[in-house]
Structure formats: structure tokens, C-alpha cells
């Protein structure tokens, strides 16, 4: 979330799309309700009428996988009616940037497409630059090559009639939603988006979010209270695990995983450190080497020095151009190239798209270590449905982990709040905390490597001193994450002693004199103490629910990021009531003469762009400090699938032709080629659109909720929801068991025949959609009859993130 949970209450209009907040983030509805009671409108767009829809002021249905068409139409609506916040757009976004002549969009493809490799040459999407290398801009937004004009041209095709034919949303609903939401473009109004896996789990997942980000920028909704782009995370610590590099393509703090071609720390830093020649661009990532070197110092301590590249060569590199995501890992496992597997706190036999392939892949392993609270469908895959244990050689080790409340440590919630939690009951039986398991594992590895082995340095040199009295010490790890001064130094005129904690990332160094296991968290555990354990109930002076003394928030306790865009060029808030930051420096003769911001921690404490008399200041910086050029990107030339979003059908879809352009599917979407990978589009065997989702009564693959009798009482069985019309067509009665099948597998479920699903009218034809929760697995309940909806879902995904497309695929539903 760019904002945070409490801030939802400050919104004037809440769009809930790609999420089902009432069911999957029930506590968020505390703030949604507060906003509504204050007069905010709540809009819900979803293929199915959900418990969220039940509370929305406006609900509209939409066929799964057509969000870009829907939102693209809103962009056109905003531009046609000139509803955008012009001052904001011109000053803070790259709408004014002039794009190179080489950029074009034709026949559904952007310039630079290489059909053989299904990849774009992104150099075709660059900006025109002056002799110093600063992008050329037209702040009047009139130049035909400026981003705003190109945006207008790109989305000119998205008229509401066509949008309606693609999405199946009635035109009058589309117009009502566009009108209601875009009213937040008015100065002082804020609209927010609550999205989740309903947007990310598509072959166009990243671009779904990009489309909304463009809307938020056009309406001036980024950085303001009650605005932002808010991802509702699927687990309480997903934000934390992402920040700390759960994913293959990043190191902690969103540093890049080194490529094989980054041959030295110098080459690595050079490759990934952006440079700007605009004196008004803070280009914060210009500090990259300070963060990467501090990370290496944290990994290897005294063993890392300038002479040995701070141990850079001891870290694994990924091959250039190769992906190592979930889909790719299981593909390799299926092909037999991966021999060992730690399934740590996860259940891929149920949670992964095309789960049947994952289960088969596990047969190819020599060994698996299953670290979890209980045995699950992954650890017991060898005795699951269709398996013959006598033919499976995989040796499975189970390491019982304790539950979150049985250990001390932190989680980072969707709102980027790092919250310290204390130990409640002690771990039961012989279960241990993940920290203890990892520490012990590390100790053993170190002992083994002492006896020899290939390339022992990475393990032998690893700093591994996070135990106290033989047990994992979460405080030592939290301090390591924050980082230390490793020698007596003077930084920015301040003296620091060796061994003390670094007060914030502004003090990190690239010379090896500081460590930090995650620069973004530098400021979380300082000489003043554990910031995340703070519990002050006092709000900030702007009284918008920031509660700056409660827990700690990255970066540097900034509760609403991009907040410099919540003020005008003179530093005064667009919204006088729910203001986020405000410049209150002294003024003399129309000029600011002293620096002071109040409210939230500002996105950089520089002077505003202009003085009160309107004169420009040269000591200021553009608002979006994390961007190379200091401007938010309406035109995003870094994405794999295009600088503007475009509607493509899901890889499996019910229509032969994309009504928007000649490319049916995202031309860069990954597909896999083993015999376990099958796809079906416009195949009469699989005529219905399907999607998967969660219910409030279960969690994830249900490992913690399926053995819980009170929750099983509420949602005892896997089900498939369908319209009354579809049920009638297939002679299916409400409550009876049916078979749902896709090109990859089939699943027995209970039919819920409901008015909450309605058939869609797509391009003049009737298209039916069904939906299933994915919380179940054969291991529990004991009947063994309930299994995972991911047996049906397809092995494809987003080309940027490679998140699987589990939210739109094709199935059949039949009586048993």
C-alpha cells in the first residue's frame, strides 16, 4: 500500500476491484465503513456479487480478465471530459515528457516486438532528451509527442460501448462508475483503490495495476490522504517477506539479484544505479551502491572488504534473461533438474497454479524438507490421490515449525508497518521457530563445509551470529537488518561510534564502513530502541490517522509515500482538511527563507518547487524522488509488455478475437511446454470462464483453517458458484456435487446456484462464468473428497512478475 489501512477512512470514493475486501480483509472494512459513514461512495466491480458487493453503494459485474478494458475506458473518460488534475499532472507526472519518434503502437503491438523471443526491445520506448540528457518536456501538455497526448491517442479506442462488449458490464453501470470515481479529480477530493490477487494473477497483472496507477495520477490521487494505490496483501507478512527478498529477482530492499553479466560489484552497481543529469531530480536510487555494499557487509561482516569486492563473488548470479519464479522452478522440477526442495511455510501441492504438475514434479525429487505447522498435501504428496507410494523415491523430512504467536519478532503489514510482536505461549512439542530452524541449519552447513567441499567461501564466510544462549535472537536479526557503523566515522557532519546502530539510510556508505541487511528498514531499530515496538496512541498534528509513534513504517516512518505530491508547487496542501504534509518555512518578500515541513515525514525535506511569489527554486527536487527523472510514470518504459497498458484476453478465453486489437493474448506471456502443460481456448470442451478466490472462513490452502472445526462448520466443502441460468442449462441442482474440469485436471465440488453470478453478454454472445475457492486439499477433512481448485488453473502468468494466471481460465461443469 502506498497509504495504509487506517487511511482508507479519509477517502471520498473507494473502488474495490480485483479484491474482495469484506471477505478477505474483513478488518479493512472497519475503515471502509467509517469512510462510508462520512459520506464516501464505495464502488465494487467483480465478476460475482460478493459480501463486498453487499455493502457497496454501486456494484457492477465484469468478466474475469477484462479489467484493463474497464479501466482504460475510465482513462478515456477522464481525458475526453478533461477531468484530470492539470496542475498535478503537469508538475508531478511524466505526462509532459516527449517520447522518441521510434515509439509506436500498431496492431496490438508496441514498437520493438521480437516475435521469435516474445520480447520487446524497450530502447524503442525512450524519451527525447536535451544535450545534457534531461528529458524534453512540454508542461502545457500540448505537444503531440508528449505522454499525455500519446495516452489520449492510445486510449481513444476504449469507448464505453466497446468496453461493455469486452467486459460484459452494462454500459449504464460503466458510465455511473466512471462518473462517480472521476469526481475525485477535483482538488481536495481523494479516491482510493483496494486491489489484491484479482488484479495480480493475470497475464496482464502488472498492467492492471499500471492502468489504475495512471488513473490515480491523472486524478491527483497519489500521495494524498484517502488516495494511493493499495495492494491488500494475501497474508499478514507478505509485505515483509517481499521487502526482505522472498522473490528470486530481488535482494532485500528491492536491490536487483545480480546477473551473470554483472561480473564485479563495480559492474553490478554501475548496471543498476540510475543516473540523472537533472539537478532537480533527487534520483534516490543513485544511492544504490551504499545499499548494496552495506548489504554485503551485513552478509559477510569482517570477511567482506574492498579488496575482495565485499564478497560479491560468493553470491549466486542468475543467468541473463532467465526467470527463476515459482512457475519456472516447478517446471524445472518436473523436468527432473531440481533434486532437492525446501517447502518452507508453503503448500505448493495445493497453492500452485496447475497443482497437479507440482505434485508430479515432487516425484522427481531425491529429497524434500517440509517445514510447516502440520503435515500437508505437499509433505504427504506421495500418498495423495493417484499416487503409488511404492514407485516414489522422494525422501520427505518434516520439520515442525511453531505458530507465529509462539515466537517473538516482527511482521510488516500491507500498510508497510513493521510491528513487533511478543511471544505468547511457548512452542508445543518439538516444534521450533523458523529462526531457530534456520540458525541450526546454518550451523550444520558451516560445520560440514569446514570439512571441505566445493566453493566453501559463501557458507564459511557468512556472518552467522544471531544466537543468544544457543537460541535464535530476533533482536539481533532486527538490529542487523537496520545496520551498524563498522568503524568510527563522521557522516554529514555527525560523529558515529563503531558498533552503534545507523539512525537512517541517509547515513549508509558504499565504502564498507556501514552494514545494513535491508536499507529500507534502516531507521527501524536504532540507538533509541526498537521503533517497531512503539505503541503510542497519539496522532500527528494533521489528525488523519497517521499515529507516527505506533509501530514503525518504511521508509523512515513515512506513513503515506509520495506525499510531496499532496501539496502544490508552493508546498501547500491540495486538501486543507485531510492534509498530509505542509511547508511552514519562514517567508520574506515572497521567498521562503527557512525550511520546515509538518505532518507526515515528507518525501525528502527540500524546499518546495516554488516560492510563494511563484518563482522557481533551484534547491528543490521533483516530487517522485524514487524515479530517475523525479516524475511519476504515466508512460512506463521499464515494463516487459509495453509502456502503456493494453487489453489482451486471458491466455485461456472464451472468444476467438480480442475486440480491442488483433493480438488475442499478451504477446509476452510465458507458456510452458511439458506434457503436464495444457491450454484450451475457445474449446467447446471447456466453454465456461472460471476464476478462483478465497472466502473469509478459510486461509490460504487451509492448512491452519481446515483442521479447525469451528471454521469447517462454516465452510465444510469445496464449492463451485454458478448462475441459475448455467445450472438450468446443465440440469444442476443447488447443493449437489458436480465435476469441474479444465485442460489440466478435474475437481469434484458442491454446486452453489446463485443469483450472485449472472451470464455476461460478450460481443453479442452469452458467456457464463463460474468461481471456486482454492482453500481445500485432500489431506483434510478426513473424507479426502475436497481438493484444491489449483488442479484446474493454468501454467502461465504475468511477463513482469510471472505471477500465475489463476484468476481467468476455461472449464467445463457437469453433473456427476
Amino acid at each position, binding site marked *: 500500500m502506498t497509504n495504509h489501512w487506517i487511511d482508507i477512512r479519509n477517502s471520498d470514493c473507494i473502488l474495490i476491484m480485483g479484491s474482495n475486501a469484506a471477505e478477505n480483509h474483513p478488518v479493512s*472494512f472497519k475503515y471502509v465503513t467509517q469512510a462510508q459513514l462520512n459520506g464516501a461512495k464505495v464502488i465494487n466491480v467483480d465478476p460475482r456479487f460478493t459480501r463486498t458487493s*453487499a455493502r457497496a453503494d454501486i456494484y457492477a459485474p465484469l468478466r474475469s480478465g477484462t479489467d484493463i478494458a474497464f479501466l482504460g475506458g475510465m482513462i478515456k473518460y477522464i481525458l475526453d471530459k478533461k477531468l484530470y488534475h492539470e496542475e498535478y499532472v503537469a508538475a508531478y507526472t511524466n505526462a509532459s515528457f516527449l517520447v522518441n519518434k521510434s515509439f509506436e503502437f500498431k496492431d496490438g503491438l508496441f514498437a520493438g516486438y521480437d516475435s521469435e523471443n516474445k520480447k520487446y526491445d524497450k530502447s524503442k520506448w525512450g524519451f527525447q532528451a536535451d544535450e545534457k540528457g534531461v528529458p524534453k518536456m512540454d508542461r502545457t501538455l500540448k505537444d503531440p509527442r508528449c505522454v499525455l497526448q500519446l495516452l489520449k491517442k492510445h486510449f481513444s479506442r476504449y469507448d464505453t460501448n466497446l468496453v461493455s462488449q469486452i467486459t460484459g458490464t452494462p454500459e449504464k453501470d460503466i458510465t455511473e462508475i466512471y462518473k462517480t470515481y472521476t469526481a475525485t479529480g477535483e482538488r481536495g477530493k481523494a479516491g482510493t483503490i483496494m486491489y489484491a490477487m484479482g488484479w495480480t494473477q493475470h497475464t496482464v497483472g502488472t498492467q492492471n495495476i499500471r492502468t489504475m496507477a495512471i488513473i490515480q495520477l491523472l486524478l491527483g490521487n497519489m500521495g494524498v490522504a484517502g488516495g494511493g494505490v493499495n495492494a491488500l496483501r494475501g497474508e499478514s507478512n507478505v509485505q515483509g517477506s517481499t521487502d526482505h527478498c522472498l522473490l528470486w529477482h530481488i535482494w532485500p530492499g528491492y536491490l536487483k539479484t545480480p546477473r551473470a553479466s554483472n561480473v564485479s560489484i563495480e559492474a553490478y552497481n554501475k548496471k543498476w544505479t540510475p543516473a540523472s543529469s537533472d539537478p532537480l531530480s533527487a534520483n534516490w536510487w543513485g544511492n544504490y551502491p551504499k545499499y548494496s555494499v552495506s548489504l554485503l557487509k551485513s552478509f559477510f561482516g569482517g570477511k567482506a572488504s574492498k579488496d575482495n569486492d565485499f564478497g560479491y563473488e560468493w553470491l549466486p548470479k542468475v543467468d541473463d534473461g532467465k526467470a527463476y519464479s515459482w512457475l519456472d522452478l516447478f517446471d524445472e522440477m518436473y523436468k527432473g533438474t531440481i533434486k532437492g526442495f525446501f517447502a518452507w511455510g508453503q503448500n505448493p501441492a495445493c497453492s500452485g497454479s496447475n497443482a497437479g504438475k507440482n505434485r508430479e514434479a515432487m516425484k522427481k525429487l531425491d529429497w524434500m524438507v517440509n517445514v510447516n505447522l502440520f503435515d500437508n498435501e505437499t509433505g504427504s504428496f506421495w500418498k495423495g490421490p493417484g499416487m503409488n507410494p511404492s514407485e516414489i523415491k522422494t525422501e520427505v523430512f518434516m520439520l515442525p515449525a511453531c505458530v507465529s504467536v509462539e515466537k517473538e519478532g516482527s511482521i510488516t503489514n500491507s500498510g508497510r508497518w513493521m510491528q513487533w510482536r511478543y511471544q505468547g505461549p511457548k512452542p508445543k512439542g518439538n516444534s521450533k521457530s523458523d529462526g531457530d530452524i534456520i540458525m541450526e541449519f546454518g550451523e550444520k552447513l558451516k560445520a560440514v563445509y569446514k570439512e571441505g567441499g566445493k566453493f566453501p567461501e559463501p557458507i564459511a564466510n557468512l556472518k552467522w551470529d544471531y544466537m543468544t544462549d544457543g537460541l535464535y535472537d530476533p533482536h539481533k536479526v532486527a538490529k542487523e537488518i537496520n545496520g551498524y557503523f563498522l568503524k568510527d566515522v563522521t557522516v554529514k557532519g555527525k560523529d558515529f561510534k563503531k558498533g552503534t546502530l545507523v539512525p537512517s539510510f541517509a547515513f549508509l556508505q558504499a565504502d564498507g564502513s556501514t552494514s545494513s541487511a535491508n536499507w529500507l528498514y534502516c531507521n527501524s531499530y536504532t540507538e533509541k530502541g526498537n521503533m517497531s515496538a512503539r505503541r503510542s496512541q497519539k496522532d500527528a498534528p494533521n489528525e488523519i490517522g497517521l499515529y507516527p509513534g505506533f509501530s514503525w513504517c518504511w521508509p523512515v516512518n513515512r506513513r503515506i509515500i509520495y506525499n510531496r505530491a499532496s501539496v502544490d508547487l508552493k508546498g501547500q496542501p491540495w486538501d486543507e482538511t485531510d492534509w498530509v504534509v505542509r511547508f511552514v518555512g519562514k517567508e520574506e518578500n515572497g521567498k521562503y527563507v527557512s525550511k520546515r515541513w509538518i505532518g507526515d515525514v515528507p518525501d525528502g525535506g527540500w524546499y518546495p518547487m516554488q516560492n510563494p511569489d511563484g518563482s522557481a527554486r533551484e534547491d528543490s527536487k521533483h516530487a517522485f524522488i524514487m524515479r530517475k527523472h523525479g516524475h511519476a510514470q504515466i508512460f512506463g518504459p521499464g515494463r516487459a509488455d509495453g509502456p502503456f497498458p493494453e487489453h489482451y484476453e486471458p491466455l485461456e478465453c472464451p472468444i476467438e478475437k480480442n475486440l480491442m486489437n488483433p493480438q488475442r493474448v499478451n504477446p509476452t506471456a510465458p507458456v510452458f511446454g511439458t506434457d503436464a502443460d495444457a491450454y484450451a481456448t475457445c474449446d467447446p470442451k471447456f466453454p465456461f470462464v472460471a476464476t478462483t478466490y478465497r472466502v473469509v472462513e478459510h486461509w490460504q490452502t487451509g492448512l491452519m483453517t481446515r483442521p479447525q472445526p469451528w471454521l469447517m462448520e*462454516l465452510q465444510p466443502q469445496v464449492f463451485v458458484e454458478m448462475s441459475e441460468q448455467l445450472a438450468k442449462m446443465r440440469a444442476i441442482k443447488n447443493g449437489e456435487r458436480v465435476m469441474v474440469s479444465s485442460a489440466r485436471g478435474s475437481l469434484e465440488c458442491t454446486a452453489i446456484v446463485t443469483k450472485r453470478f449472472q451470464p455476461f453478454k460478450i460481443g453479442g454472445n452469452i458467456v457464463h462464468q463460474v468461481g471456486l475457492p482454492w482453500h481445500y486439499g485432500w489431506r483434510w477433512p478426513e473424507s479426502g473428497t475436497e481438493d484444491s481448485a489449483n488442479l484446474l488453473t493454468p501454467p502461465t502468468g504475468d511477463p513482469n512478475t510471472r505471477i500465475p494466471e489463476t484468476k481467468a481460465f476455461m472449464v467445463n461443469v457437469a453433473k456427476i
Partner: protein
Amino acid sequence: MSKSFFVDTTLCTACRGCQVACKQWHDLPAEQTKNRGTYENPPDLSFNTYKLVRMREEVIDGKLRWLFFPEQCRHCTEAPCLETAGDPSAIFKDAATGAVIFTAKTKGLNADEIIDSCPYNIPRKSADGTLAKCDMCLDRVQNGLLPACVKTCPTGTMNFGDRKEMLDLAKSRLGVVKKANPKAQLIDADDVNVIYLVAYDPRSYHDNATASNSVIRMTRQMALRKMFSPVAGVAARVI
């Protein structure tokens, strides 16, 4: 002053936290259920289920509504069950809170008669005839805590406090809700200590959402007649 619940169904998301919290606080066992083609489960209140979120799909004025109704004992100001029982060791009213409390001695009552006397069809019997229903979490309330269902509610649907405070809140919310929903109403607010606000006709939420007024008025007579005839209560209900 007695305590009351104010249940604002216009804010309910049917997360059913209340339903689970009730089971957890009272340590009630789960029932073996099946998916019956609806999310609503278990199918009815029972000796082990005091609180049940009713869910109904209704088309009202051409629009689909999913109506949620967290059903529980209303703790009537003049409780027919209590009067029908006529045995304070089995059913009594806690003077401080107004909670209508069933004890283990309900085993000695005519269970069906008590159930029949309830205008909202709430009490349920066990195999041995003992009766059970919501107890307002009296043990919590007496120790300064909110009832478990109220404590767990994220949206403000479930509220609890002094009766006057709850009535004021209910009336104020009714005023707001009525602007968009002219049929909005408080259900039987004068007669019960669990005051529901609904946006539409109460009967579209649940058959027993509202009591027939005649039943409430009959109760005193019922109690009197009961003294003379064991079947009079049933007869009065039929009238």
C-alpha cells in the same frame, strides 16, 4: 439500567466473526455440516449454536441484495419464555443487565412449550431436553467486557451498552439509513434488548426476524392461563 445490543445490519459483511467468537467464548463444539448450496451454516440454531448469521439473496426494487442477519436471542424486556417457564431457577432475568438466562434446570421444563413461546423461535434443546441460547455473555459483561460477538465485530454492526445509549444510536442510524431506504426500520425496539436495524422488510431477511405483535401481547395471558391449563399456551399462540 438494562443493557441492549444494537445490531446495524446495514453494516454487516457476514464475516461471521461473531458466530465463531460466540462458539469460542462458550466453548461450544462445532457441528458436522455439509455445503447445502449456500454459505449459511450450520443450517439452524441449535443447542450448540447460539448465534447464526442468516444470509438471503433477494431482488428488491430490481436490484440484487444479499441480506445478512446475525440471529440471536432478543433478551425480550418481558420474556415469554421466562413467563412460560414460571421457574426462576430455570429461566431468570439478570436484574442488572436484563439478560434472560437459561440454567441447567431448564431440563425440568417442557422444552417444546418454551420454544413455542418464543416469538423469535430461538431456544433449542439438547437430547436430554436441556435448553440453551445466547446468554449475553453475562460472565464477560459482569466483568466489564463486551459480549464476544460485539468485541469481534470489525464493522460496527454489533454494538452493546446501556439501553438508552443503544436506542439513541439506533434511532440516529435509522434516520440516516431511511434517507436512502424508506422501508428501513428498527425491529420491535420497544420489546427487546437486541435491537435490529434493517434497510428493507424484516421478513426478507429471515422468517423470524420480527415477532408478531399479537404473540408479545398474548404472553401475559399465556402465563396466566398456563397456571390453569397445561395446553393453554399453545392454544393462545394459535389464536
